[in-house]
């Protein structure tokens, strides 16, 4: 099958949906003339005049305007260059977009996607490297997506654009230029459905974003020793595909959750609590977390590398859980 990058996949998703629906527009810093800091919106301004807006450096107006447009029936996709900048827009995303359907007693639908690049790995230091999925996923009214492959990115973004709820779409920055298989034919991926990236029998590893490929590499390696690791990518952080995860843990009896965000109050806690509630008696070992350290992301590349889980960290915990 054809191989394209995640940035290209995102570009295709936007292009295809904008072609179908003149009622979709996108806005953000550097997305038009320049085609996006990470090329995700390349060529769209030319193809869709008037529907691709380069904005001033005004994150709160970007989010407010995207929400206001969505509220009035125009589907909006807002881009934040780095998810770290979305703090400036959090009032609009959380106080306005997430809550208004409820506050308005169902009078509103809010078809808005807040796209943002996420995570560390480019030596940009603490203000350009955060993984903020939990801050959004904790909020009722939001959906939160984090794809790990070009295929998932494309299918999920198309679903997000056509969802009538506000969606926070976190794109792992270091994956933008990695290639993966993406069919030419159109497809979407339902929001809220996880994916078994590799099936296995001995232990369930739930991983997101960059941690998916690392977990797969570990699974591959351990397979050679006869250890069978199931790797699940929930893809959607909220709503979470609890069913898929619980079924897997019931099968393997072991759970390890891997994420890049700092450990404390990270998403692993939720997944472990859910599994405890629904599959306590199936567990043969304590559930484990492999997560980012509780530190801001440092500039130095060696330190930065150590700040988030490495394959060897994942491997060690998998081995430990099997003891």
């Amino acid at each position, binding site marked *: 099958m054809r191989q394209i990058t995640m940035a290209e996949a995102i570009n295709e998703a936007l292009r295809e949906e904008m072609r179908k629906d003149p009622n979709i527009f996108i806005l953000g810093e550097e997305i038009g003339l320049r085609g996006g800091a990470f090329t995700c919106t390349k060529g769209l301004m030319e193809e869709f005049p008037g529907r691709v807006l380069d904005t001033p450096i005004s994150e709160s107006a970007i989010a407010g305007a995207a929400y206001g447009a969505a509220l009035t029936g125009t589907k909006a996709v807002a881009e934040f260059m780095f998810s770290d900048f979305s703090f400036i827009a959090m009032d609009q995303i959380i106080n306005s977009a997430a809550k208004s359907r409820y506050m308005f007693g*169902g009078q509103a639908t809010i078809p808005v996607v807040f796209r943002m690049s996420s995570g560390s790995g480019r030596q940009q230091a603490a203000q350009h490297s955060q993984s903020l999925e939990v801050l959004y996923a904790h909020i009722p009214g939001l959906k939160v997506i984090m794809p790990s492959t070009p295929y998932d990115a494309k299918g999920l973004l198309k679903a997000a654009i056509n969802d009538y709820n506000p969606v926070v779409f976190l794109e792992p920055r270091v994956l933008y230029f990695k290639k993966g298989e993406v069919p030419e034919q159109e497809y979407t991926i339902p929001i809220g459905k996880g994916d078994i990236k590799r099936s296995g029998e001995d232990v369930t590893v739930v991983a997101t974003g960059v941690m998916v490929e690392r977990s797969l590499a570990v699974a591959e390696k351990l397979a050679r020793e006869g250890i069978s690791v199931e790797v699940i990518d929930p893809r959607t952080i909220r709503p979470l595909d609890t069913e898929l995860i619980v079924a897997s843990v019931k099968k393997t009896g072991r759970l390890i959750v891997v994420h890049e965000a700092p450990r404390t109050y990270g998403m692993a806690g939720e997944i472990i609590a859910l599994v405890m509630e629904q599959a306590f008696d199936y567990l043969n070992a304590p559930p484990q977390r492999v997560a980012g350290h509780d530190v801001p992301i440092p500039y130095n590349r060696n330190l930065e590398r150590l700040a988030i889980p490495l394959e060897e960290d994942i491997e060690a915990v998998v081995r430990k859980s099997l003891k």
Partner: protein
Amino acid sequence: MDVTTSLSKEQLTKMYYDMWIIRNFEENLLDLYQKNLAYGGMHVSVGEEAIAVGACANLKREDTIVTSHRGHGHCIAKGADLKGMMAELLARKNGLCKGKGGSQHIVDMSVGVLGAQGIVGAGCGIAVGSALSFKIRGQKNVCVNFFGDGAANTGSFHESLNMAALYSLPVVFICENNGYAVSTSFARSTKIDKISVRAGSYGMPGVTIDGNNIFEVYKTVGEAVERARQGDGPTLIEAVTYRWYGHYVGDPCTYRPPGELERWKEKDPILFLEKYLLANKLCCQEEIDGLKAAAGKAIAEALDYALASPEPEPADLFTDVYFEK
């Protein structure tokens, strides 16, 4: 005030009636709040009615408004369902928000009321979004954004007005300068005298007007709306006014200098129009009394409706979190 001549008697009496509706609605609320039938955060706009009514008289049904925490008047002037509003304030199931939103989140999408806002300043961005919607869809409509003097000090105001001007969006920003943000007087929140000068920071026209003179409001907003509708971009209008009842229901208003309220009461916007109608023999006293009575009746009916409406059921807690196909 040559604008007056362009307004028909029908229009003028409707304005007069609408202002009474707002005042009755809100004065009833004060009472309902005392009785603990309405509750939560509630801010009334008594004394400021000319801005809501004068501004919205320029709007079509498909035009939109975004308002603030002090939004009852704007919603009513734009045509929001009175019964649904009253039921909402009483937290009833038949309320516009099914009892889930309350005063600070009143909405009526069917008439372009895009919602009150609990977050000061947030409305400016939303108005930009509504105007963007019009522009992208090629609709010749306008969004009017009402907010206070306090809101003009928020970052959202700045970013939104700059963006609106940059894209020449059809939006009219109306800053109701009532002299206070809660207990903080205007002079204690900024060093400038007039908020309208801030328009210059965005390259849009800005003007300060007497917000208690409904003719001035009607005319100034009318011109701004027309400009916006023609694609010539946004305007910032500062309408100077005063809120009679303090910031929130129950505010002791100790921060007001003595005599201030009394002076402003002399500038009652409703009385202003009433005097005009009588002096120009557009209405006789009987008609005036009839309009007042009709407004009182409409509010009484809304209240009856609201009181008859059931409370939401426990299961309603869980609906409307997400849209589901």
